[in-house]
């Protein structure tokens, strides 16, 4: 039976070639797909029911993907390569003959007055959002794009836009009405409202995503799939540049920090190779030997004392590295939850200890706000001054960095042409057990302009750390 599917589906349009193009697009989006996986993908086509699009989607995902966070990109590409219904009847073929009929009747007044269809669509949207049926919502999104999404082509030849749909329907303004419906009149202001709000947010996001998908499909028909695929795919979360991180990316980054911090904590505490054992436990060995007739076949050892490192984090929180420092403070917070020997210091042109803001369980965003308000990190005008900051640090906390502590400096090393304070840093590095500097700037910019990164790199091990992937690399090689 599976053979029949292949031969019938393989003939028109070269299914194999199509799959090949899809695999290549997935690869170009930054998801590593090996040859054996591509072969497996071809095998998937022979096993799944090709008429069932969702089966194909999940089937190919099972062989092509290797991590959970690749799924969003994959889905975007899948929708482009295996679009829902290229045929014009597709809207109706979802099993709703009257849906098709409605679309036709809506088309007619569209020619006359613009206002009428969008008002009716808006009503329908409100109803669908209140019901919350995702499949219905997606179907509606397709229809809404068909009716409202097109405009005269822009210079780049693009004529489908999701903003037109969103503006015509303005779903955000439906929130109050929906809230009313979900709460059924009672219980405003309490928990029920918060839950309902969350639900509405989720449904609106679903609708928006469905509109985007449909618009991309239309654009792809117009301007070619490959071009759309390139612009539609966002970088994976661990490739996002710290210095350019958007508000929305930060939540994603925060999710990635926790496991990284755990790994870093393990790396720093388990210095010796696993499996090496401590002193002989004589008593236990003798006792165990009784089972083997008094021959001590297996020796038992006392566990080694766990090494408790002290980590000193020195973090630049000036405006130029805002995205990065946000991230590193999140890392500091996560580290604090894993081991107690972390002391955190922040500086702009002066230094202050900020450990107290990172009690386990504290909210990172809140801690960052409090640092900005309460910590004494600005002495003069609020531009970074590494020389002064380092001096203040060495001066006020002379004993913090010692032979048991690891020093982690986080910053771009841009001194605003002020003295970099190299000797102070060199002294700190000498006193510490190990010292590393994570720099969020690309290596080629080090030493350009007011950057003293190259000078610092001579006295301390400086690592380029522009995104979470690079941080993960650093943690593994530590």
């Amino acid at each position, binding site marked *: 039976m599976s053979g029949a599917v292949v031969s019938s589906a393989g003939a028109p349009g070269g299914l194999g070639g199509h799959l090949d193009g899809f695999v290549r697009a997935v690869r170009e989006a930054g998801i590593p797909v090996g040859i*054996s996986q591509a072969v497996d993908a071809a095998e998937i086509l022979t096993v799944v*029911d090709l008429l069932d699009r969702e089966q194909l989607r999940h089937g190919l995902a*099972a062989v092509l993907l290797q991590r959970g966070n690749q799924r969003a990109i994959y889905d975007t590409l899948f929708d482009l390569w295996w679009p829902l219904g290229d045929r014009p009847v597709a809207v109706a073929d979802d099993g709703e003959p009257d849906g098709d009929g409605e679309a036709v009747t809506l088309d007619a007044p569209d020619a006359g007055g613009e206002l009428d269809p969008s008002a009716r669509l808006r009503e329908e949207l409100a109803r669908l959002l209140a019901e919350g049926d995702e499949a219905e919502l997606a179907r509606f999104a397709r229809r809404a794009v068909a009716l409202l999404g097109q405009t005269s082509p822009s210079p780049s030849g693009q004529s489908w836009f999701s903003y037109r749909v969103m503006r015509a329907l303005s779903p955000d303004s439906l929130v109050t009405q929906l809230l009313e419906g979900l709460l059924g009149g009672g219980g405003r202001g309490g*928990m029920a409202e918060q839950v309902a709000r969350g639900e509405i947010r*989720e449904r609106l996001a679903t609708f928006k995503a469905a509109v985007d998908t449909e618009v991309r499909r239309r654009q792809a028909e117009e301007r070619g799939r490959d071009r759309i695929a390139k612009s539609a795919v966002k970088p994976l979360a661990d490739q996002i540049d710290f210095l350019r991180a958007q508000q929305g990316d930060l939540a994603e980054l925060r999710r990635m920090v926790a496991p990284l911090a755990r790994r870093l904590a393990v790396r720093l505490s388990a210095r010796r190779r696993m499996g090496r054992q401590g002193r002989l436990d004589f008593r236990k060995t003798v006792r165990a030997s009784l*089972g083997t007739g008094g021959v001590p076949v297996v020796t038992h050892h006392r566990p080694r004392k766990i090494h408790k490192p002290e980590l000193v984090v020195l973090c630049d929180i000036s405006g130029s590295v805002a995205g990065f420092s946000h991230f590193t403070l999140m890392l500091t917070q996560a580290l604090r939850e894993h081991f107690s020997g972390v002391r955190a210091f922040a500086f702009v042109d002066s230094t202050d200890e900020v450990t107290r803001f990172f009690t386990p*369980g504290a909210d990172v965003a809140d801690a960052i706000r409090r640092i900005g308000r309460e910590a004494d990190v600005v002495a003069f005008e609020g531009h970074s001054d590494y020389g002064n900051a380092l001096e203040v640090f060495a001066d006020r906390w002379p004993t913090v960095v010692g032979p048991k502590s690891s020093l982690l400096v986080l910053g771009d090393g841009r001194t605003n042409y002020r003295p970099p304070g190299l000797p102070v840093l060199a002294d700190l590095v000498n006193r510490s057990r190990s010292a590393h500097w994570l720099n969020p700037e690309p290596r080629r910019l080090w030493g350009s302009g007011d950057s003293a990164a190259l000078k610092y790199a001579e006295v301390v091990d400086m690592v380029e750390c522009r995104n979470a992937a690079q941080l993960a690399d650093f943690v593994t090689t530590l």
Partner: protein
Amino acid sequence: MPRPPTQLPQFSSVSDVAKRLSAAGYLTDKQIATTVFLADRLGKPLLVEGPAGTGKTELAKALAAATDAELIRLQCYEGLDEARALYEWNYKKQLLRIQASQAEGGANWDSVHDDIFGEEFLLSRPLLTAIRRTEPTVLLIDETDKADVEVEGLLLEVLSDFQVTIPELGTVVATRRPTVVLTSNATRELSEALKRRCLYLALDYPSAEREREIVLSRVPDLAPGLADQLVRTIRALRALELKKSPSISETLDWAQTLLELGLDTLDEGAIGDTLGVVLKHASDQERAAAELRLN
């Protein structure tokens, strides 16, 4: 090279998977059913990755129940080695055997040697047990990410050929290939080589509809209206940035708790009293109380 034994597929279609798993008490969605079906058809191990408490281990158990197979479980932990995963010689018994033969007076070395490396002295661990079984088997390798990297190398060998070479005994080849399910909490990246050999299934928290069905099938006495409220609240909690988001198993615990307490509606008071069932960090509880306006 001996090909790994081929197996007749155990499921006829994706909907068959869904039907039989749900008969075994596990409600699937399209993604789970499709991936399980493919793993069965292609004879590949299934790697299930996702946060704790999303039903990864449960899936393996249901799979065993649905295919009338026995579940053999290898729980991974830091320091797991060959002796615990594959096989080990029972050296204590071997020593006794040698001493006994000495007591009998000058036994022939060859016979002793043949004797002590026999079946009798072999301690079979989960991997070897699964390979040697002739009845249907589901091999669950749980929390693979907890094991050391070396164990992955061992798994690669076993999972690609389904054979184990014991120097003294020879090569043991599986007569019947076990269905293999690996689970991982993604606390560390598994090696590319291992992932490539598996079908990948990312399990996340279920959709509202599916979770409602799960709650109602596991806690059938719960009123549907309350189940609905419960699931919506759980989803609101998951949308917050918590240290530990409530898992499916905690949803079920919560449902059970509400049932035991005889609560018939989930209002602020009821949640405040029972929040400890789903949120187990003090900071998470405070946060939820603030964001959901519980007080």
